[in-house]
């Protein structure tokens, strides 16, 4: 099972800007000699750190957005929020996630990442246009663009790796409903949290440490 996982996992790790290691033989991406070998657990830790950072960024952006643009919190408005990634079947509980096969879990992660490539770029463009945005979240915008860059990398590499069947129906860019920024931020925050937790569970599955 782990062998099947290796492919998608490796690409997943690769696009998150991490050195790729297959088993015990070190493979350094840029062909440097004397690359430091990393264990899979360390790689996962790095990936998880990245995802945590992404989630933190999205959360901050969301809260700042609400703070600046929606002073009056309207909880009812949240009801109608429907993210574009809702079609992706994701485990919603701990047991469900742990019961899920590693390969499927990786597939879910990749689908999520893939689905957010275009919306994030759209958001970045809209942010650039809004002058108000730049004032309050200039740094965050940069970080968002970093995230998008990462996601772009992975989507290209993932497409060739995972079959379309595994990916499931994708919402092409043309079909994507134009989301407003608030909704996008909210959805991205949620999905980044999903990705982070799924990665952690995956790590416990693939490179188990004590207590997993």
């Amino acid at each position, binding site marked *: 099972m782990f062998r099947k996982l290796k492919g998608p996992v490796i690409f997943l790790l690769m696009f998150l800007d991490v050195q790729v290691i297959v088993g015990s033989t070190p493979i350094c991406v840029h062909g440097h000699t004397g690359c430091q070998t990393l264990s899979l657990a360390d790689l996962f830790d790095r990936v998880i750190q990245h995802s945590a950072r992404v989630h933190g960024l999205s959360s901050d952006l969301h809260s700042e957005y609400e703070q600046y643009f929606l002073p009056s919190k309207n909880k009812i408005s949240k009801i109608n929020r429907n993210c574009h990634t809702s079609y992706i079947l994701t485990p919603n509980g701990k047991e469900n996630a742990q019961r899920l096969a590693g390969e499927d879990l990786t597939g879910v992660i990749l689908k999520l990442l893939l689905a957010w490539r275009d919306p994030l770029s759209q958001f970045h463009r809209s942010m650039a246009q809004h002058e108000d945005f730049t004032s309050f979240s200039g740094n965050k915008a940069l970080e968002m663009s970093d995230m998008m860059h990462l996601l772009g990398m992975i989507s290209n590499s993932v497409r060739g790796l995972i079959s379309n069947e595994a990916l499931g129906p994708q919402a092409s860019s043309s079909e994507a409903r134009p989301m407003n920024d608030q909704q996008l931020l909210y959805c991205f925050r949620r999905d980044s949290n*999903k990705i982070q937790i799924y990665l*952690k569970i995956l790590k416990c599955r693939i490179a188990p440490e004590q207590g997993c």
Partner: protein
Amino acid sequence: MHSADPRLTLSSSDLRDCPGPEMMAARHLLLLLSQACLLLETGSLAAAPPLTASEAPLESPHFTACLSREQETFRCWWSAGSFRNLSQPGALRVFFLKKNSLSRTWMECPNYTASVPNECYFNKSYTSIWTSYCLQLRSRHHNVTYDERCFNVEDIVHPDPPVSMNWTLLNVSRSGLHFDIIVRWEPPPSADVKAGWMSLTYEVQYRERNASHWEVLDLETSTQQSVYGLHTNMEYEVRVRCKMRAFDNFGQFSDSIFVHVPGKVHGKESTFPVTVVFIFGVVGLAILFLLIIFSHQQKLMVILLPPVPAPKIKGIDPDLLKKGRLDELSSVLSSHPLCKAEMYREEPWVEFIELDLERMDAAEKTGCSDTQRLLGLVPHLGSSHRLAAKDGDLGRASCYEPELSEADPAVAAAFCLRPRVTSPEPQSDRPAPDAGPAPDAGPAPDGEADGRPVIQTQLSTQSSVSMDFYAQVSDVTPLGGVVLSPGQQVRGPGEKGEGGDGQPLKNQKEGQKKEGEGGVEKEVPLPLLIVAPDSGAYTSELGNRQIGSDCSRREAFQDPPAEMPQPPPEKNAVEQFALIVPPAGEYQSPYFIPPTPQLPPVADYTVVQDVDAQQSLLLNPSTPPPPSMAPVKPPPAMPVGYLTPDLLGNISL
């Protein structure tokens, strides 16, 4: 409020019935009192809770809180509000709706907690993270929705407080007034941190025991935190709480722990003796130092300011001479390398020359080197009739001859350069040895055949003519030999005539060429030519030529003596003269003895009459050359700058 007023109003109405000014004042007083009482009552009444829900501002039933402790289950609480009649259990119902589910039907709360009133518990099967829940509080029958709340479960997570808090002392400050501790705890057991389901951040707060303000420290991801700058002798209270990372909902605080480090009672007093001791120590050390300095003043001066050493000059210490320590002086002198060198200076040949003609086979060893020849001939040079060549010590002892000191060392060299004369037996036909040139040295010592047949013969022949102690040095060979001027022709017994001379000359040349013969031809006063170093090629030609034709050579040879010295070096001319080829090439000792027996005896000294246009000396032609030689006079090959002996000879002739 209502109840109070009637009482008051009654009292005021009663007072109005009584007339009279005293009554009026009492009435006012009572009014005042009543108003005061009213105020008080209203104040007190305002603080009191409403007596009934219906009387209080109407508050509908509502959800009070919904929270999840571990992101796997969640609970919701509600309250009936001011609707007292709905506070009974079951009067209000909770319905929820999951947003992502396909069905849009509202479901009722799966579990109304029995132990806790007004609580709805959603277990794991009903909890879906990242899904929007909407809860509604409805009445039982009328389907009146009192309250609705929508949320995501992850947004309502309030983690449990951390457990197992303890502290350890990091360090205590030097003054003993402050200390640092490190506080450790464990994440709440309900939160599955290890599986990664939840990632928590912690916040530590501390305060002094009786203070009201809590010091808040930064959020910490790890399960430990250091607290710095706490005061000793003071009790502190520390607590910690946690929340999910990137979320804002803190959980409850943990139980506080108390930190107390007893400090020194006399915090500041303890420093006093330390400083006193320190000062005393410094003073004592200073005194010691001064004592030492004053007691060993001179020694210290020497150490601090050492005297400049006298310069050391090579040589003999003049003190030795002054004090008359002869023994030391002599030992110093003997051991001094300079003196040793001085001793050797007189005899430069000593080190390099070792010639033993006795031992050497005349046939085999064609020649001593130039230096050897120098040494060999030296003893006979200048010594009056005594050629005492010491056996086996030719090289060394010979130069010690006292007469030699007078003689010019160059002269000696010239003699040494003379070709070795063969033994008396094969005198005539013995070809010249390794082309040693035979300087036509005038002076010739008496011949003595004391084991030095070669030289002695030569010398003897020479001696017959004349014995000159001095010979003019015309030139110095590159090898270090000296070219003497062809002074007096040596004519001695056994010496052949000119023709004979020519023969031996030729033979000599041949011999020189071959360098095989050890015999030295009879003495032949031969002029020498010094050829330029790069004229090595000439020698071969010359040799060939010489071998080729005697007559021409002879004839050619006749010419040069008669001629005036001419500088232009020509090949033809060069042939006929002794060539001293520098040892650049193979011709180590190609001292060609030019066949010039016909040369007339040239005086050792000639007077320079004039300088030629070609910068050659025109000597006094006092001694005319022999007529046979006069007509033939090839221009002498003269190296630039050199005045060859033959030229001198020519001049003289």
